[in-house]
């Protein structure tokens, strides 16, 4: 018991330094009373309460929890990407990716924080920021997994230049994504409350829908006529929904922001909601599809499924490379359908398209002919969070 009390007392003494000076005297007050408390469990509980006070007042959950979680996640991604022969070009690319992305994720909050402030106090903002970080790390993780099974680039200058230009573009795009996530979830965010949430939720739904329609990044082929027709109809509906999503998000965000913050430009809010929709959808599609591709060469069930559903595509692909067997063939497909062109284009164009469509929707929502009639103002305007009086 004594040693436990002494240990807790030492922990309390050590942790006092974490508190701001204005709070430290309260810990001293608690400490000063410890001698009054009867020795044994009661004194131990008293001192343990002091440790709890320190954790609470120093906001250690936030100050240590987030960096610790990020460090663990980054270490996990690095461990996954690092192993392999150093001469292998894929391993070199993987290592560059991991180092760059971890540096971007660690440094950019400080850069954006100077202009926009720290993360907003709202739970939604923290959730979006954490989800953004998790998704970007997951993208790097699955990308490095695909690089291992991808075919090596041509061993000449043109091939190397193309590979590294692709990497630079990928890292630049990721920097923009992280910057947008940080700026939109900051305390002085340009987005009105609700805009980021609407855009992100819509984008997540679109991303999952598009992934389900084409889990490997291109349309599936069904041999039966009835499943093929059903799939074609689902594809048509999916394309329509994917196009309508940023418009709807922009419209809703613009209308909502015009009610909560009348000074906000509807076109700007619509553009930001559309950008969030496009960016979230692109990230989710890229992560899920690349994860599927990465697991393809190793998973027998998935390989059999893929062989059955994309069989008609094989002859076209096989003209580009000789087939040495089912394993190398699928590995080749994985390499080509990964980042070299497909998902990088999605990551680049989807936010731009979303931004344009959302801005148009916001402009329409803000134009006098389409704006909803304002309610006559009563003597006391309802607060933003109050329930509607309908």
């Amino acid at each position, binding site marked *: 018991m004594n040693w436990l009390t002494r240990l807790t007392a030492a922990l309390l003494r050590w942790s006092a330094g974490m508190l701001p000076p204005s*709070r430290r*005297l*309260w810990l*001293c*007050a*608690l*400490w*000063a*009373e410890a*001698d*009054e*408390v009867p020795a044994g469990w009661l004194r131990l*509980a*008293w*001192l*343990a*309460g*002091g*440790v*709890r*006070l320190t954790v*609470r*007042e120093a906001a250690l959950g936030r100050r240590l929890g987030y960096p610790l979680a990020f460090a663990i996640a980054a270490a996990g991604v690095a461990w996954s990407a690092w192993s392999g022969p150093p001469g292998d070009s894929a391993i070199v690319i993987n290592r560059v990716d991991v180092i760059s992305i971890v540096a971007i994720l660690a440094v950019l909050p400080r850069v954006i924080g100077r202009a926009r402030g720290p993360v907003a106090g709202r739970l939604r903002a923290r959730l979006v920021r954490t989800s953004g970080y998790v998704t970007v790390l997951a993208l790097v993780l699955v990308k490095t997994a695909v690089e291992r099974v991808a075919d090596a680039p041509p061993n000449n200058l043109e091939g190397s230049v193309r590979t590294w230009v692709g990497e630079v573009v990928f890292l630049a795009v990721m920097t923009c994504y992280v910057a947008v996530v940080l700026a939109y979830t900051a305390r002085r965010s340009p987005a009105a409350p609700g805009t980021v949430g609407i855009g992100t939720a819509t984008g997540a739904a679109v991303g999952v829908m598009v992934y389900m329609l084409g889990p490997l990044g291109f349309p599936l082929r069904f041999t039966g006529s009835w499943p093929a027709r059903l799939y074609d109809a689902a594809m048509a509906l999916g394309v329509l929904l994917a196009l309508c999503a940023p418009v709807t998000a922009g419209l809703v965000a613009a209308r909502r922001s015009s009610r909560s913050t009348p000074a906000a430009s509807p076109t700007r809010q619509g553009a930001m909601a559309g950008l969030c929709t496009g960016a979230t959808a692109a990230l989710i599609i890229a992560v899920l599809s690349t994860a599927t591709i990465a697991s393809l060469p190793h998973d027998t069930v998935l390989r059999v499924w893929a062989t059955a559903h994309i069989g008609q595509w094989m002859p076209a692909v096989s003209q580009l490379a000789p087939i040495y067997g089912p394993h190398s063939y699928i590995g080749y497909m994985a390499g080509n359908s990964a980042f070299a062109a497909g998902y990088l284009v999605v990551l680049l164009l989807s936010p731009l398209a979303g931004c344009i469509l959302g801005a148009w929707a916001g402009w329409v929502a803000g134009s006098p002919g389409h704006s909803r009639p304002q309610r006559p103002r009563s003597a006391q305007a309802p607060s933003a969070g109050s329930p509607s009086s309908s």
Partner: protein
Amino acid sequence: MGHRSEFSLQTLAVLADLCATPSQWRHGYGIARDTGLKSGTLYPVLIRLADRGLVEACWEAEQPTGRPRRHLYRLTPQGLAVATAALAQARSTDRTQASASVGGRRRAAARTAP
């Protein structure tokens, strides 16, 4: 339904304890003993009350023998007013809820009676 107090039950317990002898300086362990609160709950409550200007705190003026100086607490005049109002509101809420539950039981008994 009664209004919910702006203070938690733990805060109300601390306010009630300080309200009992408003002019006297109290120390943390004494309040903890009277209210049954743990130190990890009591001190955050005292910190919030002090931040709001409802409680004033100071160190013992003279160094006592055999123990360190204590940090002492008492309600400010504003704190006393707020505490009195909050405790009165809490008591009235308790009475309302008690009478509602007794009334509810009586009505239920009347409904089930043959």
